[in-house]
C-alpha cells in the first residue's frame, strides 16, 4: 500500500487544470456513452428513434437540473440528500398556489423562492451552526417528504387546465422545454463554475476551507448561497414535474437524490470536495439516464435493473479513478 491509498483521495493524481488527467475522466465517460449507444442500438428495439432520444433528454432533465447545483455543493465539500423530497414538495406547493388562483408566473417565482428559502435552512445550519450538511439535509429530506404527504394525504393535487404549465410540457420543434431548460442551466452553471469569483470560491472552499476563509472569501455566505441555489434548482425541477404530470405529487421523485449524487460522482467530482467539473456531471447524467432508458427498452426485469445500476455506478467510478491514476503515472515520466 502506498501513501496515496491511505489518503482520502488521490489528490496528487491530478496535476494540471484542463490537463491530461482531467480530460482522461471526460474521455473515459465519452467512451462509455459511445459504448452504451452502440450496445443499445444493436439490442434494444426503438432505442435510436427520435422519440426515444427525446425521452432520454427529458429524463436527463429531471436528474440534470438538480445535478448542476449538486456538483457545486459537492465540490464545496458538502452534500445534499434532500433533492427528491424537495422536488415533490415544490410540485405540491406550486399546485396549491395555482389552485388558490395565484397567477402562474408569480406562482413560479414563489415556488423557486420557497425552494431556495427551505434549502438555505440547511445551508445556515451548516454554515453558522456547524451541523454537517448530511445531517441537515437528511432532516430536510424527512421533513419535506413528510409535510408533502401529510398535507396532500398522498393524493395528487390537481391544477386543472393551465396554459402556461401545459406549454412547459409541449415540445418545441420536437424538443421538450425541460431539455432546453436543462441545457441552458448547464451553460450557466458551467460558466459560473469556471469564470466567476463565486464559482472559483466554491472550488477554494472545497479544496481548503481554512485558506479560503483566511483569504477573505465569505465562506459562510457562499455555503448558504450554494444550498439556496440547490433549492432553487430543485424548485425548477418541481415546476417541470408539475407540468409533466399535470398535478402536484408528494410521492414523486423518490430516490432522486441517489441518482443525482451518482451522476455527479460518476462524472468525476470528488466527494471529498475541491475537484470536479460540470462537463463531467453532464456526461454522468447521460450515463445514468442512458442506462435507465436502455434497460427498460431491453425489457430487463425491473428488479434486476437495480442490480445493473448499482454495478455500473461502482464500475464507472472505479474506472474513472484508475484512469486518473494511470494518467498521473504516465505524466510522471
Amino acid at each position, binding site marked *: 500500500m502506498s501513501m496515496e491509498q491511505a489518503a482520502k483521495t488521490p489528490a496528487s493524481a491530478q496535476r494540471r487544470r484542463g490537463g491530461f488527467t482531467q480530460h482522461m475522466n471526460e474521455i473515459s465517460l465519452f467512451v462509455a456513452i459511445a459504448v452504451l449507444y452502440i450496445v443499445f442500438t444493436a439490442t434494444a428495439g426503438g432505442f435510436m428513434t427520435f422519440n426515444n432520444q427525446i425521452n432520454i433528454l427529458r429524463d436527463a432533465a429531471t436528474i440534470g437540473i438538480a445535478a448542476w447545483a449538486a456538483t457545486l455543493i459537492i465540490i464545496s465539500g458538502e452534500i445534499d440528500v434532500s433533492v427528491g423530497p424537495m422536488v415533490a414538495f415544490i410540485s405540491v406547493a406550486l399546485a396549491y398556489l395555482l389552485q388558490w388562483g395565484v397567477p402562474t408566473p408569480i406562482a413560479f417565482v414563489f415556488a423557486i423562492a420557497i425552494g431556495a428559502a427551505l434549502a438555505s435552512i440547511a445551508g445556515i445550519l451548516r454554515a453558522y451552526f456547524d451541523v454537517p450538511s448530511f445531517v441537515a439535509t437528511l432532516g430536510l429530506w424527512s421533513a419535506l417528504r413528510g409535510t408533502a404527504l401529510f398535507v396532500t394525504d*398522498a393524493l395528487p393535487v390537481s391544477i386543472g387546465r393551465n396554459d402556461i404549465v401545459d406549454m412547459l410540457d409541449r415540445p418545441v420543434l420536437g424538443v421538450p422545454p425541460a431539455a432546453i431548460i436543462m441545457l441552458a442551466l448547464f451553460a450557466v452553471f458551467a460558466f459560473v463554475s469556471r469564470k466567476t469569483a463565486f464559482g472559483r470560491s466554491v472550488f477554494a472552499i472545497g479544496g481548503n476551507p481554512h485558506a479560503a476563509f483566511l483569504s477573505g472569501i465569505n465562506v459562510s455566505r457562499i455555503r448558504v448561497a450554494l444550498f439556496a441555489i440547490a433549492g432553487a434548482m430543485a424548485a425548477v425541477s418541481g415546476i417541470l414535474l408539475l407540468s409533466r404530470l399535470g*398535478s402536484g405529487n408528494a410521492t414523486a421523485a423518490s430516490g432522486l437524490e441517489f441518482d443525482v449524487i451518482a451522476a455527479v460522482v460518476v462524472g468525476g467530482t470528488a466527494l471529498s470536495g475541491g475537484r470536479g467539473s460540470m462537463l463531467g456531471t453532464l456526461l454522468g447524467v447521460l450515463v445514468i439516464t442512458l442506462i435507465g432508458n436502455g434497460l427498460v427498452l431491453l425489457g430487463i426485469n425491473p428488479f434486476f435493473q437495480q442490480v445493473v445500476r448499482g454495478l455500473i455506478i461502482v464500475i464507472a467510478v472505479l474506472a474513472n479513478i484508475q484512469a486518473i491514476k494511470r494518467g498521473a503515472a504516465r505524466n510522471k515520466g
Partner: protein
Amino acid sequence: SAQYKDLKVGAIYMDAQGFYAGVRKGIQAGATDAGRKLEIIETNAQGDVSKESSFIDSLISAGVQAIIVSPVSADGSYRAIQRAHDAGIPVVCYNTCLGEKDMKEFVSAYAVGDPFDFGFKLGNAAAEYFLAEKKDAPKIGVLNCEFVEVCVIRRKGFEEALKAKVPGAQIVANQEGATLDKAVSVASTMLSSHPDLDAFFGEAGGATLGAARAVKSQGRVGKTVVFGGDMTTEIAQELVDFTVIKAVVDISGQGLGKLALAQAIKSIDGQAPADIKVPYEIDLYNTAESGKAWLEAHSDGIP
C-alpha cells in the same frame, strides 16, 4: 391472421409487492392461452408517478402494441397515459386506473377488482364475525398502505360495510404498516397502547401478515383477530390455522394479469370492450378450508 403474430406488450407494476409477480405470471399464461408468442417489456414504477411517466414514454419509444399498467395515481398518471393514447397505443389499466373522465378518454379497458368492494367484502366478513362473537363495540386497529390511493378506498369500503352491521365498531388507530417488518413493529406498539384491541384490519399483504405475527408474538392469540387483504402462502397458512386471521379478501394477481392481457389483445385487434370497466371477481376466504384450497391452487406461492 392476427392470432399468430407475436405480441409486444409493455407492463408496468406499481411497486415492489408479490402481487405483481402474480400479474406477470397471469400475463404470460394469458399469452400462452391465446396461442401468441409474447415479448413483454416490464418495469416497476416503485410507487413514483414521475418514474411511471418516464417509463411510459420509454415504452412508447420501444414500439409496444399495448401498455398494461396499474397507475400509481388517478390524477397523477393521466398525462403519461394520455401520451401513450395519443401515440395510438391502447392502454389497459388493471388493479388501479385513472379518474372516470380521463379513463373514458384515454384507456381502452380497466380490469378491476373494485377497491371499494374489496374493503366492503372484508368489512362484511368482519361484521359477521363480530356478530357471531357478540361484540357490538369492537375496537379495530388499521395497518395501512394509504400512500397509494386504493388503500384509502379499501378502508372506506371496509368501514362502510362494518358500520352498517355493527354500528358500535370503532377504528381506534390507523398507522402505516405496508411492509412486513414495519407492520409487525407498528402492530406490536398498537397492542401496547390499546390492550383491548379486538381486531386488526390489514389493508395489504404485508400489513395482514404483520398484524398476525404481532398478535402471536405479543401472546394475544384468542383475544385479537386479523382481517386483511391479499393472499400469500403465509397468509393462507395462517388462515388454515384459523386462530388469528379470520378472513382474507384477495384479487388474484394471476387472474387479473390474464384478464388484462386478454383486454390488451382485444384492444390491439380493435375490439376494445364497450364498457371500459371489466370487473374481476374479488375472492373472500373466510374458512380454514378455503385457505387450504388456495394453497393447493398456488403451490408455487405466486398469488
